């Protein structure tokens, strides 16, 4: 435990009790990520059903609210047919550690940040790239043609989505003056969101969200990965527990990207100043954290469900059309946003 403590202290996080960071990580994953996964999975199925004139889950629990639990239990009790070699197991552990290492960097409130440095905004981005690498290798390791091609497509798509997203982050960094989570939040207000500050930042928001969808292969831009028909085939052989972990990894990427979007562009966790000072006067800092976290998660869910709505109402684009879109449309728009933000900030 010692090296974790030392590492965190070097990063600027001071704690007297060595176990706090681990407890914090555990708390984040158990009480924020897992419930979010369950909630979004349930809302996904219910809202898709509403859109499609169906009912959706209605048998498990009251109005089907226990459906994600049922799915999880069902998947976890299935054996997978693929037994891993030692090398594969080792790689899987390293990959999982790399992917979920960014748990420490998720900002969840003004007082609930563990990593608040100039590099903190790039850590979730890096974790999305790790996810892409893992998916690509999963595909390339297949013998069947669709799986193999799916691996290559995932790599191409992720590469295409990186460029506009990075530029989007740069725009906001320029506007806020720094890449620290606290500075990014301080540059916004309760209703003064970054994306409404000036039109180039609105463009940067669109570019960032679009780039994220391409990078993480989220519907409707999931042509490289989609398991339907001939498209992806990257993960058709993944069953049982491995499927649960795979889907959870994909959800984690989507979630962390949405949190990043909200913090960068959609007002972070800023609650009205009057409310905040009222809580401080009552000496209730925990209340501030809770309210901020709730507000942040609410905006995150709204964003995720909005993207889901677009995904359900529209068809899926072809992979080469996605990469064309990313390089040919999002890229130039990102550069335009960057130049415009630069000029606006100078003036």
């Amino acid at each position, binding site marked *: 435990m010692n090296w974790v403590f030392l590492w965190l202290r070097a990063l600027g996080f001071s704690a007297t009790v060595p176990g706090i960071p681990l407890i914090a990580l555990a708390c984040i994953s158990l009480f924020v990520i897992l419930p979010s996964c369950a909630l979004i999975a349930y809302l996904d199925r219910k*809202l898709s*059903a*509403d*859109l*499609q*004139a*169906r*009912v959706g889950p209605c048998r498990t629990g009251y109005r089907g609210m226990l459906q994600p639990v049922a799915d999880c239990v069902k998947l976890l009790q299935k054996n997978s047919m693929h037994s891993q070699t030692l090398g594969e197991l080792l790689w899987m552990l390293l990959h999982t550690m790399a992917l979920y290492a960014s748990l420490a960097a998720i900002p969840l409130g003004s007082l609930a940040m563990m990593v608040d440095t100039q590099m903190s905004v790039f850590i979730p981005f890096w974790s999305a790239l790790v996810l892409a690498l893992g998916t690509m290798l999963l595909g390339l390791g297949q013998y069947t043609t669709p799986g193999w091609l799916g691996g290559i497509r995932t790599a191409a798509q992720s590469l295409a989505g990186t460029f506009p997203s990075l530029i989007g982050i740069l725009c906001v960094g320029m506007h806020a003056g720094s890449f620290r989570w606290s500075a990014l939040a301080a540059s916004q207000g309760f209703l003064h969101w970054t994306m409404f500050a000036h039109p180039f930042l609105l463009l940067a928001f669109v570019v960032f969200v679009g780039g994220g969808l391409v990078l993480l292969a989220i519907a409707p831009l999931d042509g490289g990965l989609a398991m339907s028909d001939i498209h992806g085939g990257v993960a058709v052989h993944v069953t049982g527990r491995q499927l649960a972990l795979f889907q959870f990894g994909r959800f984690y990427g989507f979630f962390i990207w949405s949190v990043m979007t909200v913090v960068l562009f959609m007002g972070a966790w800023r609650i009205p100043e009057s409310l905040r000072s009222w809580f401080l006067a009552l000496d209730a800092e925990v209340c501030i954290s809770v309210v901020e976290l709730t507000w942040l998660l609410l905006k995150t869910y709204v964003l995720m469900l909005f993207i889901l*709505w*677009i995904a*359900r*109402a*529209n068809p899926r684009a072809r992979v080469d059309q996605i990469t064309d879109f990313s390089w040919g*449309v999002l890229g130039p728009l990102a550069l335009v946003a960057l130049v415009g933000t630069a000029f606006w900030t100078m003036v």
Partner: protein
Amino acid sequence: MMYFRRSVFIALFWYLHSIVKSSLSIAGSCFATLPYLLRIGESRKEVTDGYPDPISSKTADDLPPRSRGLLFNDIERCTGCGDCEHVCPAGCIEVASEPGAHDSRIWVSVFDVDFSRCVFCGLCVDICQPMSLVHTRQYEGAAYQLEDLVASFGRGQVTEEQREKWHLARQRLSAPQEGA
């Protein structure tokens, strides 16, 4: 030089035009599905049948009167002619009959309909002269064993002595006419 610049502007115009048109089209699709999310109007409610809940789904009586469900044979009216057995394309009906106590009485001993082969085409019902074979509106015919899918409407085999009795009864009935 002028030509080069003009084509660049034209290309830029069509590029931006396609971006705007695509975005509007995608947004249009999303907003066109919005009435479903908000459940506006009768034409947009959910169409899921809550089967097997009998309240929120259709039962056999809700089906139209002509629905071709499982077959039923009224053995009182059946004459055992075997037309249905002959016409059935799937060969699923088995009929065996013999004359009874009177010339006009026919004892249908075997009338088996094998629903694992029946395709519910209705030819047997059409051809049935006494109109004893009808379609019910039942559609729940699943069974756990293949043997349970055979529906027997026959009256069962008769013993030899019963057959003898009927034979004698028929002879007695036809004899006075021959004598007179």
